[in-house]
C-alpha cells in the first residue's frame, strides 16, 4: 500500500452492514491531499454508501474515519456540522432545491452559515456560477435546466464555501459526450484552482482514469485493487482486470444463478422419449 504524507481523508478498517447485507468488510483507504482519487467498482457495491460514511450521514459498524484530521466517527453533532462546511458533495441527481432559483441555490450555504453582506454574497455566487459557465442562468429555476446544467449548478453550490474535500457521486452517469467533457474539465480545474481533495465515485472507467491520479477498486465489500490508472489495467486480480477492461464474464458472472439448463428446457425428457 502506498503511504502518503498527510492524507486528507482516511478510512481505517471500516465495516458497515445494512440489515443482513455486508457492504464494507474491513476497508482501508487513504485519499491524498490535493489530488483526485477515484473509487470504482461494479454497481451496487456501496460506493454511494462510502460517501455517506465519510460525510458522517451514516456511522460504520466498526472502524474509524478521519476527514482533514477530524475523526468523523467520534465527533459530536455540532462539530460534525462545522466539518461539513468544509466538505462539498455533488449528488447523482444534483439535489437542487426546486423552490429556489439557481442563484439562491448557490447562495444557500453562504446565507445560512455566514454573515456576509448581500452584495458580497451576490459576487461570490456569480463567481462560482462563472466557474461552471452558468453565470447567465442565475435567475432560472431548477425545473428549467437540462440535466447537465443542473449538475453544474449543483457543483457551483457545493463549492460555494470553498471546501477542502469534494466528493462526486457518479457524476458521469447518463451524460452526453459534451456534458461529460465539460464536467471532466470542471472537476480537474476546480481541484487544482481550489486546492481541494476530490473523491470521485464512478463506474465510468475511461472518464475516471483520465483525470484521477489514484484509483481504488472495491468489490464485495473490500478493496481489491489500488494504484495509478496505468497499473490497474494489468493488475494481478481478475476482479480488477474484468472491471477495468470491461470484460463481460469473469469473477462477476454473466449468468445469474439459475437451474440446470437441460432440466429447464425439458431436454432430458425429450431425449428419453426419443429412445425406442
Amino acid at each position, binding site marked *: 500500500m502506498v503511504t502518503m504524507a498527510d492524507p486528507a481523508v482516511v478510512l481505517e478498517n471500516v465495516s458497515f452492514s445494512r440489515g443482513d447485507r455486508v457492504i464494507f468488510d474491513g476497508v482501508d483507504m487513504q485519499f491524498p491531499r490535493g489530488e483526485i482519487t477515484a473509487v470504482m467498482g461494479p454497481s451496487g457495491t456501496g460506493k454511494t454508501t462510502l460517501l455517506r460514511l465519510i460525510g458522517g450521514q451514516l456511522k460504520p459498524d466498526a472502524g474509524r474515519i478521519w476527514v482533514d484530521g477530524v475523526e468523523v466517527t467520534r465527533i459530536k453533532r455540532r462539530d460534525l*456540522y462545522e466539518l461539513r462546511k468544509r466538505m462539498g*458533495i455533488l*449528488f447523482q441527481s*444534483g*439535489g*437542487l*432545491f*426546486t423552490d429556489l432559483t439557481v442563484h439562491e441555490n448557490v447562495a444557500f450555504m453562504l446565507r*445560512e452559515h455566514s454573515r456576509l453582506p448581500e452584495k458580497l454574497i451576490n459576487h461570490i455566487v456569480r463567481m462560482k456560477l462563472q466557474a461552471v459557465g452558468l453565470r447567465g442562468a442565475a435567475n432560472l429555476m431548477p425545473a428549467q435546466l437540462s440535466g447537465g446544467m443542473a449538475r453544474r449548478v449543483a457543483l457551483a*453550490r457545493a463549492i460555494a464555501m470553498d471546501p477542502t474535500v469534494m466528493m462526486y457521486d457518479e457524476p458521469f452517469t447518463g451524460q452526453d459526450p459534451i456534458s461529460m467533457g465539460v464536467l471532466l474539465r470542471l472537476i480537474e480545474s476546480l481541484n487544482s484552482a481550489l486546492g481541494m481533495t476530490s473523491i470521485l465515485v464512478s463506474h465510468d472507467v475511461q472518464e475516471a482514469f483520465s483525470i484521477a491520479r489514484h484509483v481504488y477498486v472495491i468489490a464485495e465489500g473490500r478493496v481489491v485493487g489500488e494504484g495509478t490508472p496505468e497499473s490497474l489495467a494489468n493488475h494481478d486480480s481478475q476482479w480488477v482486470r474484468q472491471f477495468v477492461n470491461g470484460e463481460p464474464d469473469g469473477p462477476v458472472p454473466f449468468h445469474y444463478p439459475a437451474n440446470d439448463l437441460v432440466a429447464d428446457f425439458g431436454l432430458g425428457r425429450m431425449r428419453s422419449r426419443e429412445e425406442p
Partner: protein
Amino acid sequence: MNMLAALGAAVVGALQHMGKTALFFVLVLRAVPGALRRPSLLVTELYAIGVLSLVIILISGAFVGLVLGLQGYNILSKFSATESLGVIVALSLVRELGPVVTALLFAGRAGSSITAEIALMKTTEQLSAMEMMAVDPIKRVIAPRFIAALIAVPLLTAMFNVVGIASGYLIGGVVLGVDAAAYWEQIVRQVDFSDDIVNGIVKSVAFGVLAGLIAVFEGYNATPTSLGMSRATTRTVVITSLAVLGMDFILTAMMFGN
C-alpha cells in the same frame, strides 16, 4: 399459522410506526425554537398551508352550517322549539363539527400536500444535500411546516365555525322564518365561553398538532420512490383522520362527560 404470523408482524409494524412518530415528534419539538426565529420561513409556510386552505374550509363551513340549520329546524319544529335553532347550530359547530371537520379537511388538502412536498424533497436528495451543507433539514424544512399547521388549524376552525353559524342563520332565519333576534340571542345566552368555546379551541389545537406531526413525519419517512410518495400521502390522510376522530372521543369524554 401464516395468517397469525402476518397479523403479528402487522401489529409489530404498527407499533414501530407509532414509535417512530413519537420519537420524531421529540426531534421536531426541539427544532421549534430555532424555526420560530426565522419568521420569513414560517410566513411562507403559513401561506401555503393556511391561506390556500381557506377556500375549501369556508365553503365547507357554509354547507355544514346550512345542513345543520335545516336538520336542526326539522327536529326542533316537532317540539315547537325552533327559537333554539341558533343554540343547536352554534353548539354543534363549536364543540364538535368545527374542530373535527376542519381537521379532516385540512388533512386532505394541506396535510397531503405537506407530505408530498417533503417526500419529493427526500426522493430528489434535497434533504440529503441540505444535511451535507450543514443545515439541519428538521430545523429548516420540517419545523416551519409543523408550526404553520399548528397555527393554521385553530384559525381555520374558528373561521369554519363563524361561517357555519352564519349559514345556519341564513337558512333558518331568512328562509325558514326563525326569529332572527331569537337565533342570535339564544346563542349568546346558552353558549358558554369557557365550557364550549375554549374546549373547542383546545380540541382544534390538539388536532392541529396531530395533523401537522403526521403530515411531516409521513413525508420524512417516505420511501424515496414514486410509489413510496403516493403511499405516504395516502397514509397521512388516513392516519390523521383516524387519529383526529379517536382524539375527539377522548377529549369529548374528558370535557363534556361527567
